[in-house]
């Protein structure tokens, strides 16, 4: 009885151990590499319940997409401009067998990736002018094509050598080296000052146009008014002249007398010295008496 039970228990335990060693599961996030006495025999790419020989062991690799974010690095463009580029690499393990043989872990994989990307990027940037990366006219920017080529190239290399799939290489940030920044800020300030000046000058230009227009309009209004006023005055003068002419021509002799005497009153004053002939009409009576009247 006890002997039987022991045997039974041992059999069950042995069976469980065998099941444990034979069956294994892989998750969606991982690859499994089956090794036999340290030698990789096959890779299991799909998740689920699998079987192996009990003497084989499993290595698991995270198959998920990773972002590797190297430190910002300074690069030189073809036109000898310095540019600080921060890029990121999206990658995942594609071939666990090759990965484990050549790299082993994530940290060293990122180091290898860094080397590949860095050399690719510096070579690629050496063929581009700064304008191809940074330009206000969209047609000139060639960064996308350059990065696509770099990704393809890095992917080929990394897959062949390390079993890594480089999904994407992107430039995350473009910046200028710290030592250049002060001069960039100075340039930005100068540019802003120029723009500010332009705005003010344009404002003044418009203002001057408006003022000049107003002045001209004023002059037009006033001169037109002057024209009309003088015309009216002329009409007045003409009418007056006509009225005087008509009336005075009826009796020119008397008009001449009255008007001349009138003007004497105005023309002659206390500063005037008049030399009168004793023979004159006024004094004739004075000098000749009664005879002077005739």
């Amino acid at each position: 009885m006890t002997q039987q039970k022991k045997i039974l228990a041992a059999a069950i335990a042995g069976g469980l151990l065998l099941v444990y060693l034979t069956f294994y599961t892989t998750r969606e996030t991982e690859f499994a590499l089956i090794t036999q006495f340290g030698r990789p025999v096959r890779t299991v790419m799909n998740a689920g319940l699998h079987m192996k020989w009990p003497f084989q062991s499993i290595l698991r690799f995270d198959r998920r997409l990773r972002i590797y974010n190297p430190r910002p690095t300074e690069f030189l463009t073809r036109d000898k401009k310095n540019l600080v580029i921060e890029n990121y690499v999206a990658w995942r393990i594609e071939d666990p067998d090759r990965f484990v043989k050549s790299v082993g872990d994530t940290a060293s994989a990122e180091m290898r990736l860094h080397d590949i990307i860095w050399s690719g990027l510096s070579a690629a940037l050496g063929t581009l002018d700064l304008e191809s990366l940074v330009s206000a006219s969209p047609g000139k920017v060639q960064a996308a094509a350059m990065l696509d080529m770099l990704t393809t190239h890095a992917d080929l290399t990394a897959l062949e050598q390390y079993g890594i799939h480089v999904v994407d290489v992107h430039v995350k940030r473009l910046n200028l080296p710290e030592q250049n920044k002060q001069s960039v800020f100075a340039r930005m300030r100068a540019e802003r000052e120029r723009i500010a000046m332009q705005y003010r000058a344009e404002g003044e230009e418009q203002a001057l146009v408006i003022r000049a227009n107003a002045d001209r309009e004023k002059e037009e209004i006033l001169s037109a008014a002057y024209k009309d006023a003088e015309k009216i005055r002329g009409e007045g003068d003409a009418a007056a002249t006509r009225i005087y002419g008509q009336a005075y021509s009826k009796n020119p002799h008397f008009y001449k007398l009255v008007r001349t005497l009138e003007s004497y009153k105005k023309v002659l004053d206390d500063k005037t010295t008049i030399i009168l002939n004793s023979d004159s009409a006024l004094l004739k009576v004075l000098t000749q008496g009664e005879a002077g009247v005739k």
Partner: protein
Amino acid sequence: MSSVLLSTQQAGPSGARPSGDRRSPLPRSRRWALGLLAVWLLSGVFLVAPDQQAVVTTWGAVTSPRVLPGLHYAVPWPVQQVYKLKVQQLRRTVMGGDVADIPLGRLQPAASEFLSGDQNLLNVRVVAQYSVSEPRDYLFQAVDVDRVVGAAVESELARRLAHTAVDNIMTTDKVAIQNDVLLAAQKCLEGYRIGVSISSINIENVAAPPDAAEAFRDVAGARADAIRFVNEAQGYANDLLPRAHGQAAQMEQAAQAYKEGKVNRAMGDVARFDAVAAEYIKAPEVTSTRVYVEAMEQILPQLRKLIVDSSGNLDLSIIGKDDSPGTPSK
């Protein structure tokens, strides 16, 4: 399952403790085992809340990629595993930062600096919001989804800003940039198959770096100044022209008045002359003498007068001898 439970409960009191082995249908250890089995099986019931979706894996492999809200069952560990996700929830990731944070030391200047197309540096802060579109991919395709989204958005933003002039970034193109970055980043993320969809990209802050901020503010000031200049000129014109119109009207009225005055005066003069002339015609000689003499009476008293005899020659030097005004000499 529940029947198993009931039977164990019924078996409990009836075939209970002392020597109930014979009467009970199952031995005690087996009842325990069955009970544990039932509890284990029951633990597979799970609830998916209305804002959630779930993914079920069987032996590690996805078998139900999208379990909708409701009550569901999955075989408990180690066979099946349930991952619940709040798919509707907006997740947020922030790139860059506020300029105000730089002097406070909360932010490295370079962390928010982007290069514009005309090689200006700008401090930009962008918030991306995204939600889960494909729970299965979201759960199993990337190590750190937030980081992937952040990297994709940031790179598309950097690229878009690198071919836009600084003035457009700060003013007119902001919305267009947001849309472009959203589309490009979404396309990029679809390539990665990480099961997210970006719902918004929001440029929360665009500011000039502190070293040039003053100059940027001055541009805004200049724009305001320009508007002020124009307004002032407009004000000048608005002041000037009505006055000119008024002055013109005044001139016209004055001319009109002059004309009227002139005509009326002429008519008055003429009327007076006519009246006098009418009398003159009746006695011309007397009248002319009277008029003449009266005029002389008025004029002569004020004058210096020299009366000379008509026969002799006149020596003009006498005029200068005593010319103090008002003391006429004879």
